[in-house]
């Protein structure tokens, strides 16, 4: 069979859902990541410890299994949820543990003297984090965060296992009917590339800009 306009439209429809799911995953993962990051850097040792163990466990489970678990888990909790919700929750778990790690690293790279100066002023711990540390840490974390956005985009391709029709799944369905794997998956790959490559370049640009000072001193 020939590759027709209908097939292209179907794939583009999946493409739009890939963008939608990525945006949702990043938004949910961002909220989860921020909370986890705060718990992970808490002054209470037991809270820190629980957050660290949780993050280690989630980082040790493949995204595919996270998605499957969230799909069946919600089902067994008696909730009949659409694939978008199941995929969104699975992706949220995945994104939040990695984002929490990236952001914790950025926060910890803020010199200790900044914390001490804030304490002298005297800002509360929450004020210190909100007004002194986070504004500086955001700049440091930006290259890695944008880089991780590429990982999120690529990982949404696994949402097909919970019945979510995104770009990869739509490509698979089209290929099943017309059996032109090179053409279909090349097109699908190109569409992913068109989303991911600019983000990768932007991440590298941010990275370079961040290290302008260091490069000059070396």
């Amino acid at each position: 069979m020939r590759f027709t306009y209908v097939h292209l439209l179907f794939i583009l429809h999946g493409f739009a859902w890939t963008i939608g799911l990525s945006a949702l995953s990043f938004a949910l993962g961002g909220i989860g990541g921020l909370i986890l990051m705060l718990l992970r850097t808490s002054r209470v040792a037991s809270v820190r410890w629980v957050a660290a163990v949780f993050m280690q466990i989630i980082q040790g489970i493949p995204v595919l299994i996270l998605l499957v678990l969230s799909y069946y888990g919600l089902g067994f909790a008696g909730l009949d949820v659409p694939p978008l919700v199941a995929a969104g929750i699975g992706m949220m778990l995945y994104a939040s543990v990695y984002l929490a790690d990236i952001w914790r690293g950025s926060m910890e790279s803020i010199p200790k003297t900044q914390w001490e100066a804030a304490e002298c002023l005297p800002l509360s711990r929450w004020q210190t984090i909100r007004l002194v540390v986070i504004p500086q840490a955001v700049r440091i974390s930006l290259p890695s965060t944008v880089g991780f956005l590429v990982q999120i985009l690529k990982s949404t391709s696994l949402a097909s296992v919970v019945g979510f029709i995104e770009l990869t799944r739509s490509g698979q369905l089209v290929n099943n009917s017309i059996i032109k794997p090179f053409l279909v998956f090349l097109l699908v790959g190109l569409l992913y590339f068109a989303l991911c490559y600019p983000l990768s370049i932007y991440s590298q640009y941010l990275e370079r800009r961040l290290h302008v000072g260091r490069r000059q001193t070396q």
Partner: protein
Amino acid sequence: MSYGFDFSSVLPFWPDLLSGLYLTVVMTVFATVFGLVAGIAVATARRSRVKSVSLPAGIYVETLRNTPFIVQLFFLYFGLASIGIHLSAVVISIIAMVLNVGAYTGEIIRAGLDSIPAGQLEAAECLGLSSTKIFFYVSLIPAIENVYPALTSQFVLMMLMTSVTSQISTEELSGAAYNIQSTTFRAMEVYITIAVIYVLIAFALKLLFVGLGRLLFRRKRALRNLSRVRLAGTQAVAG
């Protein structure tokens, strides 16, 4: 509707899980070894001054890094089958994994090679070391040492990535789980079981890499102390 967990229905299938685990480990070992070799080749090619060598290496890295693994897998699996090349799913999976991880390790090792000061290479030349010796002992091994944490965490991610190959019917851990749940209908129990197994493998792999790092890079501890001193210095300046 209430649902009672019943792990005992999964228990009889432990031989399937074990053979799945075995395949996951085998694929991980293959992809780590060949991925490292591919990474070194790619990094060297990308740093080449000859444009016709560095440009294809760059295109390879950017293409593989900016498309999902599952699409690469489908492209190879269904694509090769459509032109009459029938390889087993396991072979295709390992090829796809090596190609994929080679791009990532290539970038990591390149960063490591870039971090070697030119003075070190010049010093080695002055000592009269042969160019192969310089490449291995002065350039490559210290480069890998510098990026060792990033490199090993990439290999852990790659181990997790093996689960994706179940989508082309490779019967590694996830594939085995899929088969078990389709006969027992105990999906939640099966997937929780293999999630625990994955966490344990990831943990074991991290421990293994830390141990291996200690064994391979004995200088590391001395170096780390040095960098700590240097870091304290830069922080004092920044503050």
